[in-house]
């Protein structure tokens, strides 16, 4: 465990949080502190963008319907402006309130991330993806950052000529890597391109080569070219391709990505370009960003601490309080944790028991 300057050990989440903040600020991302509430209307208008469908609402003193933030991105967009040739770079660490998993109950979740909003160019896009890769490195070296391109996915699915319901089902099959399901969905159709999209994953160069024959021209080629450029620029980072990342096409476009850490059963980082969401909110700017689900990181440290406290200092009712305070001070000098008690607490695990008798520490 890393010690902080005060001398007590930091948990991994805390260490990562400080590291991420420093990393983002080094690249000019300004910390953005938000209020906990937002008008409900903002989420009602962009409901599908939210990961979970439930929102905690309440009525403010002036009668407005308010919500506990289920998401950070929408609030940040709302508070930025479109300025030509400029990008606004912000980072945040905020709690969000969502319905989680199968229990269908609200949970408070800690999210850290950044957003880059404005005239996003190739440099800004690569910077954000590189920061995502470096964020994963800060959490644990054993990680994977996977990129997908909604343009490639969309163009190849378009070749199947499906109605909207079938198209949604095809996208679901891509997300599940479900080739059998895709074939059943499109009997008699040539699904070779989409099948390759599902089966090809891993090192960017090989995957792009495998997809080239199916992305001959037009939008598909342009998207694949963009992906090639970006992955070439990011080659010093551990970046892979996998097109099973299928985010909602009403909001996301271009490159989307997801980060995994070995030992955590779900993705810990999620992000991408969301120009479509900007358009839907009446904005001209482009945008890219990502979020890290910090609460998942506590799963990484499997070993629990063997002791609750280093030293249990037992004293009796007659002990001199000033002398006792001094004794505690002495014992904590070497960085030990000390609890002073008159009796041994139930279930407390301590490394060493020390008695305080006659104004002195007796080992």
């Amino acid at each position, binding site marked *: 465990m890393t010690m902080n300057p005060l001398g007590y050990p930091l948990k991994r989440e805390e260490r990562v949080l400080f590291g991420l903040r420093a990393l983002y600020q080094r690249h000019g991302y300004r910390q953005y502190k938000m209020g906990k509430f937002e008008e409900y209307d903002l989420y009602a208008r962009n409901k599908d963008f939210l990961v979970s469908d439930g929102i905690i609402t309440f009525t403010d003193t002036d009668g407005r319907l308010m919500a506990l933030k289920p998401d950070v991105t929408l609030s940040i967009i709302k508070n930025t402006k479109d300025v030509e040739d400029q990008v606004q770079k912000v980072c945040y660490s905020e709690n969000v309130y969502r319905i989680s998993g199968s229990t269908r109950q609200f949970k408070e979740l800690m999210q850290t991330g950044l957003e880059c909003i404005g005239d996003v160019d190739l440099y800004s896009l690569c910077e954000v993806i590189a920061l995502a890769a470096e964020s994963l490195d800060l959490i644990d070296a054993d990680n994977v950052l996977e990129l997908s391109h909604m343009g490639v996915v969309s163009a190849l699915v378009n070749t199947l000529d499906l109605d909207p319901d079938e198209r949604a089902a095809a996208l679901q099959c891509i997300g599940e*890597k479900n080739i059998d*399901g895709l074939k059943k969905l499109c009997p008699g159709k040539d699904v070779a391109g989409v099948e390759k999209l599902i089966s090809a994953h891993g090192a960017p160069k090989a995957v792009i080569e495998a997809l080239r024959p199916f992305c001959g021209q037009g939008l598909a080629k342009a998207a694949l070219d963009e992906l090639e450029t970006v992955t070439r620029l990011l080659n010093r980072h551990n970046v892979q391709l996998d097109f099973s990342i299928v985010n909602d096409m009403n909001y996301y476009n271009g490159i989307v990505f997801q980060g995994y850490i070995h030992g955590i059963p779900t993705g810990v980082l999620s992000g991408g370009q969301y120009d479509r969401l900007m358009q839907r909110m009446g904005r001209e700017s482009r945008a890219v960003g990502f979020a890290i689900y910090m609460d998942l990181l506590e799963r990484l440290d499997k070993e629990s601490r063997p002791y609750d406290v280093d030293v249990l200092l037992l004293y009796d009712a007659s002990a001199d309080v000033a002398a006792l305070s001094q004794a505690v001070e002495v014992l904590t000098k070497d960085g030990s944790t000390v609890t002073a008690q008159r009796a041994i607490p139930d279930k407390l695990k301590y490394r060493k028991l020390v008695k305080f008798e006659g104004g002195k520490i007796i080992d």
Partner: protein
Amino acid sequence: MINVALPKGRLGEKVYAMFAAAGYECPSILENNRKLIFENEAAGVRYFWVKPSDVAIYVERGAADIGVAGKDILLEYRPDVYELLDLNLGRCRMAVAAKKDFRDDTEKTLRVATKFTRIAREYYAGLGRDIDIIHLNGSIEIAPILGLSDVIVDIVETGKTLLENNLEPVETIVPISARLIANKASFKFNASTIEAIAEGLKGQIKYD
């Protein structure tokens, strides 16, 4: 080491036979004892038996890297997993069944008894039909007989149980079979091993 969650029961035994034939044997698994976890270090696999409806939970939460679950479970619980292969085993269908003399009275709310509330709700929502869902955990067939519900939504294999209770299938909702599923994060870190297993199993699938 790849952790494999197998569904306890007849289907699970058939699935294990496919794994074994594909080169991922673990002979101790067939011994009749109370052990739950079986390992073949050389082949790099560890099997464990769990309740069929729990397989998806073990895989989604990463306790198992891969597993075999019925499509019914995947449709009902929507776990966030990869569905790598249709094993074409345990084939049956999700169907609406009713008493033989049943006539759908569209003037009334349809009462539907089922274990699969999500599948039933989505099916009838697609039809725009107002229904009253009655969630039961077993012996679904008894519901229409006792007048608890108008129809049931359940898995139909041969239709024999329905027939014995004077019921018949009215509509097929979706065909069901066993699927090989994988945890998404595990797949990232063990892609080649998991794909090799999937490829091996693919060679064992029997089509008719």
